[in-house]
């Protein structure tokens, strides 16, 4: 994976399922009431045995080999992979065919009721808050994506993927392999260490 690839480090053990990240994204990016760019889903290893909840933060993985771009039928593609690893929608080109919506194995893209200048409905997805990329950390709201900035628990951290991996390793945590679809997702999910019991 490219050295400049950004990503999130997600620690489900820290998360308390408050979903500040979802609202942070909606407030920052004016996401409408019909769709979300990110989501937290509660999962459990075996809910019939031990009560345990793993809230998993999910957003666009900004994959190394994005399935959405491969699937896009628009000439010249309505999605692009930037040099910093971001996968961005180009709304001007999008014709709302939803191929990317179905191609994405992570359900990260949604069709919206918003239209572009041509009059097509457009798809929408996480941009890692690209409009904040050129800002300074001292600017109001800082320069990291809104979800990671407002997360009270520190369960989501934003940064260069390689550095985040190094950090996780230093803390003795393992990365979970979830790349079933061979798209090279950039999010890092840490393996839960399990609970110690009383």
């Amino acid at each position, binding site marked *: 994976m490219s050295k400049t690839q950004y990503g999130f480090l997600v620690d489900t053990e820290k998360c308390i*399922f408050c979903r500040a990240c979802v609202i942070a994204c909606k*407030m920052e990016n004016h996401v409408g*009431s019909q769709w979300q760019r990110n989501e937290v889903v509660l*999962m459990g290893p075996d809910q019939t045995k031990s009560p345990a*909840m793993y809230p998993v933060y999910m957003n666009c993985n900004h994959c190394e080999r994005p399935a959405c771009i491969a699937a896009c039928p628009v000439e010249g593609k309505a999605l692009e992979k930037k040099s910093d690893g971001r996968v961005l929608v180009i709304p001007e080109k999008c014709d709302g065919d939803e191929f990317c919506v179905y191609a994405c194995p*992570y359900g990260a893209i949604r069709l919206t009721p918003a239209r572009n200048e041509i009059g097509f409905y457009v798809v929408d997805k996480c941009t890692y808050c690209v409009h*904040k990329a050129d800002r300074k950390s001292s600017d109001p709201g*800082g320069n990291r994506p809104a979800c990671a900035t407002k997360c009270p*628990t*520190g369960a989501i951290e934003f940064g260069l993927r390689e550095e985040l991996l190094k950090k996780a390793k230093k803390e003795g945590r393992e990365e979970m392999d979830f790349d079933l679809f061979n798209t090279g997702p950039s999010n890092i999910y840490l393996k839960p260490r399990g609970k110690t019991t009383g």
Partner: protein
Amino acid sequence: MADKFKPVVSKANLWSRRSFLRFTAVSSAAVAGNSLNIKDALAMHSWTGKTDFEQYPYTEKLIHRPKDGFLPDKVVNSGCSFCPSNCRHKVHIKDGRVMNVYGEPDDPVQDGGLCAKGQSIPQLLYNKYRITKPMKRKGSKPSDVFEPITWEQALTEIAQKLIDIRDNTPEGAKGVAAKASGRQTREVGAMQWRFFELYGSPNTTHEGYICNDAGGIALGMTLGKGGQTNGYGYDPITKTEDLGDSKYILWFGTNDAECHPVLHSYMKKRKNKAGTKWVVVDPRFTMTANGADLWLPIKPGTDMAFIYGMLHHIISNNLEDKKFVEKWVAGFEELKKFINEKGYSPEWAEKITGISKDTIKKIAEDYAKTKPAAIITNAGIAHQVNAVDTFRTLIFLSAITGNIGIHGGGANFMHNSPIGVSLPPIKIPLNPPFTKGGVGGIIEAGLPPQPDYFVRAVNTGKPYKLRAIFYAGNMLTQNSNTKEVEEALKKLDLFVSFNLFPQEDTYYADYILPTTTFYEVDHVGVRRCDRGIRWRNKCVDPIGEAKNDPDIWIELGQMMAKLDKKNPPEYWTENLDIKWKDKKYLWNQVSPKNNPTAAGMTADRMDKLSVPLRWPCPGTDHPGTSVMFLDNPKWKDIWGGKRFPNAIDKVEIYTKELDDKLKPTGHSALPEFYTSPENMDGHPTLEYTDEFIKSPTVSNTSGGNLIHKVKIGIKPDEKLRKEYPFQLITGRNSALHFHTITHWAWNLTQISGDIYAQIHPKLAEQIKVQTGDFIKVETPRGAMEMPALVWDGIQPNTIFIPISFGNKQKVHQDVERRIWDTVNNLTSNVYYDTLSGQQGYKAYLCKITSIPGKRLVEKKIVKQ
């Protein structure tokens, strides 16, 4: 078109192809089509006409693009008044509009964090349903038709009505009652209190009896001062992180993670760092329990038995802190004798609580041997009929192990941290018919202090009839037994609702007065659990003609000055000064000048600090108090050299004086075990007699409050127990919502799930339901139908239904969500803790039946 934009497929399904299982079928994506009557929605819509709502469109607008990113013109430091995390909000303003909110990065506890609801305040501020003009009802109750009127007209008519009630009804002034909201707590409660004192009614109350006042009362009785004993974040006096440096924490009856997400995040970060051991005692496996080392599924309402079991083990094994007990505890021997006589052993507690004696012993040992060890509790204890008594046993536990007055320890009962603020003294003495001997002396005692009792006073006329209610909040969701609330609302001569939105109870209102959100006024809002307050600056002017609650009371006072013939105008204008509309002026009049324990808490000092300033703070050079009851001059000097500011300067477990004080109420200084009259195991309970006596512990005005005398140790009704065999508990639905208000923010409503009843798999098997099947939950008060959520994160034989909203949720319709209904359709307004006036919202008997064929979602939970 609308169909196309429903979520296509839940991400969770895609993920479950991996090793994960879909956790809950009742997730945000599960929306059942349910047609609802929107007739009144349309009628209500015309109330407000066009409002400034375009900035936050629901639909059909061009989405934000990266190139549209903008920086704000200015950033105002305001704050959130939802939960007592007391977050500072960095409010981003562009072109005079609130655009976004960020957290305070310089506060080490908040650490830039915010929760979901705090960020959604702009959607309450600019909301198309917001009431922006005073409204007067047309037609009979409940009515859809209201006409906008001027403030002048509204206040004149209300003031005239108040004078009529005072002068021409047998009840007189005391026939009028009011409840303040926690929205802008500090000055509002006080201003309303002042108005009522002037008017002559003792029936002014606040949200504390719905929230958690019992903890403060228990602390006050036992330690001499109410307020959470310990704090969060760096404390310059002890040079520690206080609760953050605790080694062992017992969480009793609190879902801290979902109720105070930001504070809980701090605790969780500290837990990871310091390796704190967490034990959660809760009938339900909450997010808090998820982060803990041990979860103990206790039977609802039996916490006192669990604590007595622990106390028994500690005392009989001499694990108490002998030095502390000898010097600072009064009544330890009596407690020891009492526990032994009653036989409150771990073996006894096992039978009651459903937790094994070995576990109780282990917890008792761990708690007693680890220092510092803290207890943190909240509404799980407070919303019980034995609230104060249970809280007191927790203080006993904390005190005899020497955990009071040390950093990282304490008996931390959240949500009840008074900062001793009142208003500047009365200038013109109160009018004789209602007073004795000058200042602040209403002779007549008020009703039981909880707002739930208003309803019973209206319906039964006991001890006297109420004719008018002023209510900030929503009576039809906050108050128990909504059927009776409706009945009462129809009977009232005057019902004035202070509200932002057309909530359920406003349909019964004679007048609706539009109030403001936290961003539209300078104020000191809700305090952090550890008594910390912040100064919050006004971000934008009030929307439309809305006014903040204290200003409404001041203006009503000015109107009374014009119309009241029995008092000189100065009586109103001087005692409710119009200058107090300037909140900074008012605050500085009150706090530094008239409240010595808060003398250092000036508005400017608090505004400059990025962390909350913690009461007590007697001077500008005092850093504020994190640990109460310290053996340190910084604390003792505030209370004239006393460590415990009561008569005996000790932890008052038992004294004859205290026992004599409590005896007339039916309680005693050493409480024997009892629980709700609706408990499923036939434990001893209490009975409310018809006799009213003056409360020795609660007085909202100088007139005091009446309470029912109780008999403790009564056997519960066997017949009821046979008919309704299960236990119903209630609680917060999720971190997304806060009481009656947040469902008006579409962001939150969109991503929140459905209302559900959580049941244990064993129980589900018994009645043959699976997750998503509709069940009917019945109590003697009513019945509700809702989908079941089946999993073992709950005490068997217990059913959990989240508190929620009434059935007039317009935003739910807009974002195509199923309408919820309030669990208070099932609760009773009879049970309350008489020592605190705390309403018992938890622990009821119920029965459940399945409704064959009715399902929320088609999919079953299958193991993949």
